[in-house]
Protein backbone atom coordinates (compact mmCIF):
# COMPACT_ATOMS: atom_id res chain seq x y z
CA UNK A 1 0.00 0.00 0.00
CA UNK A 2 1.15 3.49 -0.78
CA UNK A 3 2.17 5.15 2.45
CA UNK A 4 4.55 8.02 2.57
CA UNK A 5 6.69 8.68 5.59
CA UNK A 6 5.71 11.88 7.36
CA UNK A 7 7.86 13.87 9.68
CA UNK A 8 4.96 14.68 11.98
CA UNK A 9 2.53 11.84 12.19
CA UNK A 10 -0.94 13.03 13.02
CA UNK A 11 -2.26 11.88 16.37
CA UNK A 12 -5.80 10.60 16.73
CA UNK A 13 -7.43 10.20 20.10
CA UNK A 14 -10.52 8.07 20.20
CA UNK A 15 -12.94 8.41 23.08
CA UNK A 16 -16.14 6.41 23.40
CA UNK A 17 -19.29 7.90 24.87
CA UNK A 18 -21.27 4.95 26.19
CA UNK A 19 -24.30 4.26 28.32
CA UNK A 20 -27.83 3.05 27.97
CA UNK A 21 -30.31 4.02 25.30
CA UNK A 22 -31.60 7.58 25.61
CA UNK A 23 -29.21 8.60 28.38
CA UNK A 24 -27.85 11.65 26.58
CA UNK A 25 -24.93 10.35 24.51
CA UNK A 26 -25.98 12.25 21.39
CA UNK A 27 -26.44 15.38 23.45
CA UNK A 28 -23.00 15.09 25.01
CA UNK A 29 -21.18 14.53 21.72
CA UNK A 30 -23.07 17.47 20.23
CA UNK A 31 -22.23 19.70 23.19
CA UNK A 32 -18.49 19.65 22.49
CA UNK A 33 -18.22 19.01 18.78
CA UNK A 34 -19.98 19.08 15.49
CA UNK A 35 -21.95 15.92 15.24
CA UNK A 36 -22.48 13.66 12.29
CA UNK A 37 -24.33 10.39 12.16
CA UNK A 38 -22.16 7.49 11.10
CA UNK A 39 -23.91 4.47 9.65
CA UNK A 40 -22.84 0.94 9.26
CA UNK A 41 -24.69 -2.04 7.90
CA UNK A 42 -24.70 -4.96 10.24
CA UNK A 43 -25.30 -8.56 9.40
CA UNK A 44 -27.37 -9.63 12.36
CA UNK A 45 -27.23 -13.35 11.86
CA UNK A 46 -23.46 -13.44 11.53
CA UNK A 47 -22.63 -11.08 14.26
CA UNK A 48 -25.22 -11.53 16.95
CA UNK A 49 -25.12 -15.30 17.06
CA UNK A 50 -28.67 -16.02 17.87
CA UNK A 51 -29.05 -13.67 20.80
CA UNK A 52 -31.24 -11.39 18.75
CA UNK A 53 -34.88 -11.39 18.16
CA UNK A 54 -34.80 -10.50 14.50
CA UNK A 55 -38.48 -11.12 13.99
CA UNK A 56 -39.22 -7.44 13.74
CA UNK A 57 -36.83 -6.95 10.82
CA UNK A 58 -38.96 -9.15 8.60
CA UNK A 59 -36.54 -11.96 8.13
CA UNK A 60 -33.78 -9.78 6.75
CA UNK A 61 -30.33 -10.41 8.06
CA UNK A 62 -28.98 -6.91 7.97
CA UNK A 63 -29.78 -3.72 9.72
CA UNK A 64 -28.38 -0.25 9.94
CA UNK A 65 -26.53 0.86 13.03
CA UNK A 66 -26.21 4.58 13.52
CA UNK A 67 -23.65 6.08 15.82
CA UNK A 68 -22.95 9.65 16.76
CA UNK A 69 -19.60 10.87 15.70
CA UNK A 70 -17.78 14.08 16.46
CA UNK A 71 -14.34 15.55 16.09
CA UNK A 72 -12.55 18.14 18.18
CA UNK A 73 -9.45 19.53 16.53
CA UNK A 74 -6.90 20.50 19.16
CA UNK A 75 -4.33 21.66 16.68
CA UNK A 76 -2.96 20.65 13.32
CA UNK A 77 -2.24 16.96 13.62
CA UNK A 78 -3.98 16.37 16.95
CA UNK A 79 -7.67 15.53 16.96
CA UNK A 80 -10.07 13.93 19.38
CA UNK A 81 -12.70 11.69 17.84
CA UNK A 82 -15.82 11.00 19.85
CA UNK A 83 -17.98 7.99 19.14
CA UNK A 84 -21.35 7.55 20.76
CA UNK A 85 -21.82 3.81 21.06
CA UNK A 86 -24.91 2.20 19.60
CA UNK A 87 -27.38 1.97 22.44
CA UNK A 88 -29.05 -1.33 21.79
CA UNK A 89 -27.60 -4.59 23.01
CA UNK A 90 -27.68 -6.20 19.61
CA UNK A 91 -24.98 -3.88 18.34
CA UNK A 92 -22.29 -5.00 20.74
CA UNK A 93 -20.10 -6.21 17.90
CA UNK A 94 -19.62 -2.59 16.86
CA UNK A 95 -18.15 -1.80 20.26
CA UNK A 96 -15.07 -3.88 19.56
CA UNK A 97 -14.22 -1.82 16.53
CA UNK A 98 -14.83 1.38 18.45
CA UNK A 99 -12.82 0.23 21.46
CA UNK A 100 -9.86 -0.76 19.31
CA UNK A 101 -7.14 1.77 20.00
CA UNK A 102 -9.44 3.92 22.13
CA UNK A 103 -7.98 6.07 24.88
CA UNK A 104 -10.96 5.49 27.13
CA UNK A 105 -14.66 5.95 27.62
CA UNK A 106 -17.18 8.16 29.34
CA UNK A 107 -20.08 6.05 30.60
CA UNK A 108 -23.15 8.24 30.90
CA UNK A 109 -25.55 7.19 33.59
CA UNK A 110 -29.05 8.27 34.49
CA UNK A 111 -29.85 7.72 38.17
CA UNK A 112 -33.47 6.95 37.32
CA UNK A 113 -32.30 4.02 35.23
CA UNK A 114 -28.93 3.19 36.65
CA UNK A 115 -29.06 -0.44 35.56
CA UNK A 116 -28.88 0.67 31.93
CA UNK A 117 -25.20 1.46 32.25
CA UNK A 118 -24.20 -1.83 33.92
CA UNK A 119 -23.47 -3.47 30.58
CA UNK A 120 -21.18 -0.61 29.49
CA UNK A 121 -19.25 -0.75 32.76
CA UNK A 122 -18.88 -4.52 32.47
CA UNK A 123 -17.61 -4.11 28.94
CA UNK A 124 -14.89 -1.57 29.78
CA UNK A 125 -13.85 -3.38 32.95
CA UNK A 126 -13.58 -6.59 30.96
CA UNK A 127 -11.45 -4.95 28.28
CA UNK A 128 -9.33 -3.06 30.75
CA UNK A 129 -10.15 0.20 28.99
CA UNK A 130 -10.02 3.26 31.29
CA UNK A 131 -13.40 4.87 31.84
CA UNK A 132 -15.18 7.34 34.04
CA UNK A 133 -18.85 7.51 34.96
CA UNK A 134 -20.64 10.78 34.21
CA UNK A 135 -24.03 11.01 35.87
CA UNK A 136 -26.33 13.04 33.69
CA UNK A 137 -28.41 15.20 35.98
CA UNK A 138 -31.59 15.73 34.03
CA UNK A 139 -34.10 18.27 35.21
CA UNK A 140 -36.08 16.69 37.96
CA UNK A 141 -33.72 13.76 38.36
CA UNK A 142 -33.12 13.00 41.99
CA UNK A 143 -29.64 13.99 43.10
CA UNK A 144 -27.59 11.26 44.65
CA UNK A 145 -24.17 11.57 46.14
CA UNK A 146 -21.40 10.20 43.97
CA UNK A 147 -20.56 7.78 46.77
CA UNK A 148 -24.09 6.38 46.77
CA UNK A 149 -23.80 5.95 43.01
CA UNK A 150 -20.40 4.28 43.39
CA UNK A 151 -21.90 1.78 45.80
CA UNK A 152 -24.89 1.15 43.57
CA UNK A 153 -22.60 0.52 40.59
CA UNK A 154 -20.10 -1.49 42.65
CA UNK A 155 -17.43 0.67 41.08
CA UNK A 156 -13.71 0.50 41.73
CA UNK A 157 -12.77 3.42 44.05
CA UNK A 158 -10.23 4.62 41.48
CA UNK A 159 -12.85 5.14 38.76
CA UNK A 160 -13.87 8.82 38.79
CA UNK A 161 -17.54 9.75 38.95
CA UNK A 162 -18.65 13.21 37.87
CA UNK A 163 -22.07 14.80 37.92
CA UNK A 164 -22.79 16.46 34.62
CA UNK A 165 -25.35 18.07 32.40
CA UNK A 166 -24.83 16.52 28.98
CA UNK A 167 -26.38 19.59 27.34
CA UNK A 168 -23.71 21.85 28.70
CA UNK A 169 -20.48 22.33 26.79
CA UNK A 170 -18.57 23.11 29.99
CA UNK A 171 -19.93 20.03 31.68
CA UNK A 172 -19.15 17.75 28.74
CA UNK A 173 -15.64 19.25 28.57
CA UNK A 174 -15.16 18.55 32.26
CA UNK A 175 -16.17 14.92 31.77
CA UNK A 176 -13.62 14.52 28.96
CA UNK A 177 -10.91 16.27 30.98
CA UNK A 178 -11.65 13.96 33.91
CA UNK A 179 -11.28 10.95 31.63
CA UNK A 180 -7.96 12.10 30.16
CA UNK A 181 -6.74 12.91 33.68
CA UNK A 182 -7.74 9.42 34.79
CA UNK A 183 -5.77 7.91 31.91
CA UNK A 184 -2.84 10.14 32.85
CA UNK A 185 -2.97 8.87 36.44
CA UNK A 186 -2.70 5.36 35.05
CA UNK A 187 0.35 6.33 32.99
CA UNK A 188 1.93 7.84 36.10
CA UNK A 189 1.25 4.83 38.31
CA UNK A 190 2.99 2.51 35.87
CA UNK A 191 6.10 4.66 35.65
Amino acid at each position, binding site marked *: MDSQPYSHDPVAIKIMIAGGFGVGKTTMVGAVSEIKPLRT*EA*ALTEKSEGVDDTGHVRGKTTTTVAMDFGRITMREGLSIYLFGTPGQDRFWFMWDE*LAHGALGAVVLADTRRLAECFASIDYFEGRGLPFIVAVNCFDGARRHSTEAIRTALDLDPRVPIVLCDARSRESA*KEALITLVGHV*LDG*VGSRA
Partner: protein
Amino acid sequence: MDEPAWADEDAGPIVRPYALTGGRTRDDLGGRLDLLDLVETTGEEPERKADLGPEHLRIRRLTAEPLSVAEVAADLDLPLDVVRVLLGDLLRHGLVRLRKPASVSRLTDARLLKEVIDGLSAL
Protein backbone atom coordinates in the same frame (compact mmCIF):
# COMPACT_ATOMS: atom_id res chain seq x y z
CA MET B 1 -53.29 -12.98 0.36
CA ASP B 2 -49.53 -12.76 0.74
CA GLU B 3 -47.60 -11.24 -2.09
CA PRO B 4 -45.37 -13.76 -3.80
CA ALA B 5 -41.80 -13.26 -2.66
CA TRP B 6 -39.74 -11.81 -5.48
CA ALA B 7 -36.57 -12.85 -3.74
CA ASP B 8 -36.31 -15.49 -1.09
CA GLU B 9 -33.66 -16.42 1.44
CA ASP B 10 -31.62 -18.19 -1.21
CA ALA B 11 -31.06 -14.92 -2.97
CA GLY B 12 -29.00 -13.76 0.00
CA PRO B 13 -29.23 -10.41 1.66
CA ILE B 14 -30.50 -7.57 -0.45
CA VAL B 15 -28.97 -4.36 0.75
CA ARG B 16 -29.31 -1.38 -1.48
CA PRO B 17 -26.20 0.52 -0.41
CA TYR B 18 -24.04 -2.25 -1.75
CA ALA B 19 -25.32 -1.57 -5.24
CA LEU B 20 -22.70 1.17 -5.21
CA THR B 21 -19.97 -1.38 -4.74
CA GLY B 22 -21.18 -3.81 -7.38
CA GLY B 23 -22.40 -6.04 -4.59
CA ARG B 24 -19.05 -6.29 -2.89
CA THR B 25 -19.37 -6.16 0.87
CA ARG B 26 -15.71 -6.37 1.76
CA ASP B 27 -12.79 -4.28 0.73
CA ASP B 28 -9.78 -6.13 -0.58
CA LEU B 29 -7.51 -4.67 2.05
CA GLY B 30 -7.90 -7.47 4.54
CA GLY B 31 -9.71 -5.28 7.04
CA ARG B 32 -6.81 -2.91 7.47
CA LEU B 33 -8.84 0.28 7.19
CA ASP B 34 -9.31 1.63 10.68
CA LEU B 35 -12.05 4.15 11.46
CA LEU B 36 -9.44 6.78 12.14
CA ASP B 37 -7.08 6.12 9.26
CA LEU B 38 -6.63 9.30 7.29
CA VAL B 39 -7.46 9.33 3.61
CA GLU B 40 -5.89 11.81 1.27
CA THR B 41 -6.28 12.25 -2.47
CA THR B 42 -3.14 11.76 -4.50
CA GLY B 43 -2.37 13.98 -7.44
CA GLU B 44 -3.02 11.12 -9.84
CA GLU B 45 -5.79 11.56 -12.38
CA PRO B 46 -8.14 8.60 -12.68
CA GLU B 47 -7.83 6.55 -15.83
CA ARG B 48 -10.95 5.79 -17.78
CA LYS B 49 -10.58 2.08 -17.19
CA ALA B 50 -10.64 2.68 -13.44
CA ASP B 51 -14.45 2.62 -13.81
CA LEU B 52 -15.17 5.00 -10.99
CA GLY B 53 -18.64 6.01 -9.90
CA PRO B 54 -19.77 9.39 -8.60
CA GLU B 55 -19.16 8.25 -5.01
CA HIS B 56 -15.52 7.53 -5.77
CA LEU B 57 -15.15 11.01 -7.18
CA ARG B 58 -16.89 12.53 -4.16
CA ILE B 59 -14.39 10.78 -1.91
CA ARG B 60 -11.58 12.26 -3.99
CA ARG B 61 -13.01 15.75 -3.58
CA LEU B 62 -13.66 15.29 0.14
CA THR B 63 -10.13 14.16 0.84
CA ALA B 64 -8.19 16.96 -0.77
CA GLU B 65 -7.24 17.50 2.87
CA PRO B 66 -6.70 14.34 4.94
CA LEU B 67 -9.93 13.06 6.44
CA SER B 68 -10.60 10.04 8.64
CA VAL B 69 -12.39 7.01 7.20
CA ALA B 70 -15.20 7.63 9.71
CA GLU B 71 -15.67 11.18 8.50
CA VAL B 72 -15.66 10.17 4.86
CA ALA B 73 -18.50 7.73 5.63
CA ALA B 74 -20.40 10.30 7.67
CA ASP B 75 -19.99 13.03 5.04
CA LEU B 76 -21.08 10.73 2.23
CA ASP B 77 -23.92 9.43 4.41
CA LEU B 78 -23.01 5.91 3.39
CA PRO B 79 -22.48 2.86 5.58
CA LEU B 80 -18.95 2.39 6.77
CA ASP B 81 -18.37 -0.91 5.03
CA VAL B 82 -19.58 0.48 1.71
CA VAL B 83 -17.07 3.31 2.05
CA ARG B 84 -14.35 0.82 2.86
CA VAL B 85 -15.00 -0.99 -0.41
CA LEU B 86 -14.94 2.28 -2.36
CA LEU B 87 -11.71 3.30 -0.65
CA GLY B 88 -10.22 -0.06 -1.56
CA ASP B 89 -10.94 0.72 -5.23
CA LEU B 90 -9.34 4.13 -4.99
CA LEU B 91 -6.28 2.73 -3.25
CA ARG B 92 -5.88 0.04 -5.86
CA HIS B 93 -5.78 2.67 -8.57
CA GLY B 94 -3.39 4.86 -6.61
CA LEU B 95 -5.95 7.66 -6.35
CA VAL B 96 -5.88 8.05 -2.59
CA ARG B 97 -3.26 7.32 0.01
CA LEU B 98 -3.67 6.34 3.62
CA ARG B 99 -1.94 7.62 6.69
CA LYS B 100 -2.23 5.71 9.88
CA PRO B 101 -2.35 8.24 12.68
CA ALA B 102 -0.51 7.44 15.87
CA SER B 103 -3.29 6.21 18.11
CA VAL B 104 -3.03 7.28 21.67
CA SER B 105 -3.67 4.53 24.11
CA ARG B 106 -3.00 4.10 27.77
CA LEU B 107 0.66 3.57 27.17
CA THR B 108 1.08 6.94 25.62
CA ASP B 109 3.26 9.66 26.95
CA ALA B 110 2.11 11.97 29.68
CA ARG B 111 3.15 15.10 27.83
CA LEU B 112 0.62 14.51 25.07
CA LEU B 113 -2.18 13.76 27.53
CA LYS B 114 -1.42 17.00 29.37
CA GLU B 115 -1.60 18.85 26.08
CA VAL B 116 -5.03 17.33 25.46
CA ILE B 117 -6.25 18.40 28.90
CA ASP B 118 -5.00 21.93 28.30
CA GLY B 119 -6.56 21.95 24.86
CA LEU B 120 -9.92 20.79 26.18
CA SER B 121 -9.84 23.36 28.96
CA ALA B 122 -9.23 26.10 26.41
CA LEU B 123 -12.14 25.08 24.15
